[in-house]
Structure formats: C-alpha cells, structure tokens
C-alpha cells in the first residue's frame, strides 16, 4: 500500500506492505542508510530516529503507522555542510570507532537535549544506555553529549 512519509522535512511516497518496518523502508526503499540495523528487535538502539522530535526505534515501527508524522534521520540533522554540534562533538571526542552504532547514538543524544535528563555524567550514561556500542566508545560519547549540553545547544 502506498504511504507518504515526511522524512527530514520532505514528503516521500513509498509503496510498502504493512509489514515493512520504518527501518527497512528507509534502508531498502528510500535508500536512506544512515539509520542502522543492529538487532531488528529493539535491543541495540542502532536504528534510533526521531518521530515528531522524540527518539524512537525504527525497527519496531511499521512504516504505515507514520503517515502524517515528522520523521528525522541522521541525514536530516546537519544543516547543509554544517555539522550539528553533536556530530562535531562526536568527532572531537572520538565517540565512536567502527561508526556503526553512531547514527543511533547521535540521534539519541540530540533527542536527549530536550529530555529531563539530569546534569551528571551518570545521568547521561543512564539516558544513553539504550544505545549499545560494542566498540566501547562510551566515555567519548558521554564527553560529547556533555560538551554539547554545557554549550547550551538544542
């Protein structure tokens, strides 16, 4: 069935069966491959995207559920050539190695800026625990998030 999704501010019309997840629709049909598949079962966070500004997992959402909702993927984060401060902070603090969990980490981290997460490193660790990083880049991730939060970016 045809469904029109608003992805990164643009309408995208796809012809999908109801069983197609947002994640597979993005990766296999829209060829927006920044959003990663790590587990396909809500267990790793690699597929984190924003729906109406809130972080969610694309692997557990059917594409058809999202008609009329605003979807943001990592591709929609940077303003043209200018990186979002979170992206820049991830580079600066080496908040990744292989980079595969990174899109999910960054989308989670950006959403976190608007959540009532406490100020401490421990708070950030807890709020970011839904994003596994098997490369173990956690200290860099926390440093990046804290830097952006302290700079007051939204």
């Amino acid at each position, binding site marked *: 069935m045809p469904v029109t999704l608003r992805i990164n501010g643009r309408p995208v019309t796809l012809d999908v069966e*109801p*069983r197609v997840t947002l994640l597979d629709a993005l990766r296999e049909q829209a060829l927006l491959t920044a959003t990663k598949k790590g587990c396909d079962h809500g267990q790793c966070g690699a597929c984190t995207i924003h729906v109406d500004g809130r972080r969610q997992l694309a692997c557990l959402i059917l594409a*058809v559920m999202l008609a009329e909702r605003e979807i943001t993927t990592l591709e929609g984060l940077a303003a043209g050539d200018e990186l979002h401060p979170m992206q820049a902070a991830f580079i600066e603090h080496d908040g990744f190695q292989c980079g595969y969990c990174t899109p999910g980490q960054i989308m*989670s981290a950006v959403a976190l800026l608007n959540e*009532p997460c406490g100020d401490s490193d421990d708070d950030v*660790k807890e709020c970011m625990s839904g994003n*596994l990083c098997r490369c173990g880049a956690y200290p860099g991730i926390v440093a990046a998030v804290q830097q952006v939060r302290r700079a007051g970016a939204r």
Partner: protein
Amino acid sequence: MRPFEYTAATDPADAVRLVAANDGTRFLAGGTNLIDLMKLEVETPRAVVDINRLARREPALEQVAELPDGGLRIGALVRNSDLAWNPVVQARYPVLSEALLAGASGQLRNMATTGGNLLQRTRCYYFRDTAMPCNKREPGTGCPSIAGHNRINAVLGTSPECIATSPGDMPVAMVALGATVHVRGPEGERAIPLADFYLVPGLHPERETVLRHGELIVAVELPALPFAARSHYRKVRDRASYAFALASAAVALDIHEGRIRDARVALGGIATTPWRSFEAERALVGHAVSHTLFRTAAERALAGAVPYAENAFKIELARRTLVRALTIVSEMTAR
C-alpha cells in the same frame, strides 16, 4: 513477518468492533512488543488495528487526569516516558515513575504505552523461539524451561506447565498501588482491579489476563493513596541499565511515629504475574519499623517460592531486594 491487514482506527468503537470481529486481529499500540513478537512469529495476527490515533476522537486516552477523589486516571495511550515524567506521578506516586524509568530504554519508553506495557509478554527464552516447544505459545507442547535454562524465570506462581516470569516493571508498581484497569468491549465498559487482572499459569499458561478478545484497555486508575508519596521501586538486574529485572520490589509505607499503619508491597522479576504480596503487607502493618520486621515480611513474601535449577538465587535476592526497598522508604521523610 507474515503478511497481515493493517487498519488505522480513529474511533475507539471502530477499533473494538474490528478486533472483536475476528480472533486473529490485534490492537497495535507502541508496537514494541507486538511487532517484536510478530518478527519472531510468536504472534501471527491476520490483521492489526492501529490504535495510536484514537485520541483524536477521545483525547483522554492520551491524558493523565487527576480524579476528584484524589486518584489519577491514566489513558491507555499515554507513553511510558510521559507518565514517568508527569509531575503529579512523580510527586504522589514516585514508585510508579521510578518503575517506568527503570524499564527498557529512553527510545522504547517514548513508544511504549500504558496499555501495551500491561500486556507485554514474557521474555522466557523458549517462548520467544518458535523452534522450541512451549506451553504458553503452543499449549500442550511442554515446557522446556523447567529442565532447561530458567535463570530468568519465576519462583512464585509457577505451575508444572509454565514458570515464565512476568517481565514488566510498571505493572509491579501499579499492582502495589492498587490500580484498576478500565476496559471497553463490544458489551461496554468494565473495571478490573489490577490484582485480579493477571492469571497465574496453572493449567493454561496461554491465558495471561482476564481480558476478553476485543476488549480495549482505555485507562488505568490509581486510587488516592497519600502515603504513596513515600514509595520506592528497586530493580536488580544483570547490568546497570537496559535489562529486565532479576528481582524488583515496589513499596509504599504509611509510617506514623515509627509504626507502620499501612503498606503496599509488590514484587517483580520473580513471579508469573506482577506479584502483590498481601502476606508481606500483613506482616508489616501494625508493627514498629525495624530490620527484623522487614526481614520477616520478606520471608513471608517468598514463603511459597519454588526454585528451579538456575534460579534458586532469586528467592534470597527477592527477599533482600524487598528489605532494601522497605528500608529506603522507611528512611524517607514524608514529602
């Protein structure tokens, strides 16, 4: 996933009608459990009815509203994170906020709904693997967990047919608070005390609640319980976050001059249902706060526990978790 029909309902009455009309049709809320299980083919509905847009017709489904008697009515589509962050919940029922925040992850809590959370299914390894037999998934095929891996499974409320743990955190807090579930079916609405909502496996592990097919959960009501402002949820798990409970305790205490006037106790991670422990509550009420008292209450709570090869530790862990939660609540100053 098998193919299925998808309908996005905008009217609760339509949703109920569509689901009730066909045994193979399911409500779809946050999807975090249903879609997961459909991928595993543990659930194979022929049709799903998306209930995420029902609030357009009935805004209460997405609202948390204070009731005139001091209670709280939580719409079934309220997301777990919104409920956890709700200031009234945080002030009056901290145990509930804490339980929600101890569950899943930030992303999942943004998706998961109150109704869906109540109905999430067990994480028993065998239940989630269709290559294995399982009485809950396919009645009569046997329970391979009993003589297999059962570290995460239950010690309370089990039967020879099934020992699967009820995995949720939020329901444990709600059971402790004495919540009531409001459901709407083809024959109208009814209210079910949450403590009566869940069924222990007995001979029918496939039946988990008293909900009838086609009944839509519309709300959960929490009674006014002023002393719940002194309440706490303690969860113990295999890693610091993003893991299901090995044991958890939800506790609220009404303490007056060092004596317990009233108590609410429920346990999670160790039982086949969110486990209200009236035994522990009875042991507590009327007595002076002390470590010995808490220990006695914990012994009572676990009195009927039956261990399996890998999960005997849960009995002692649950006792200690409960003692910890009681201790913390007893040391709180009333807010």
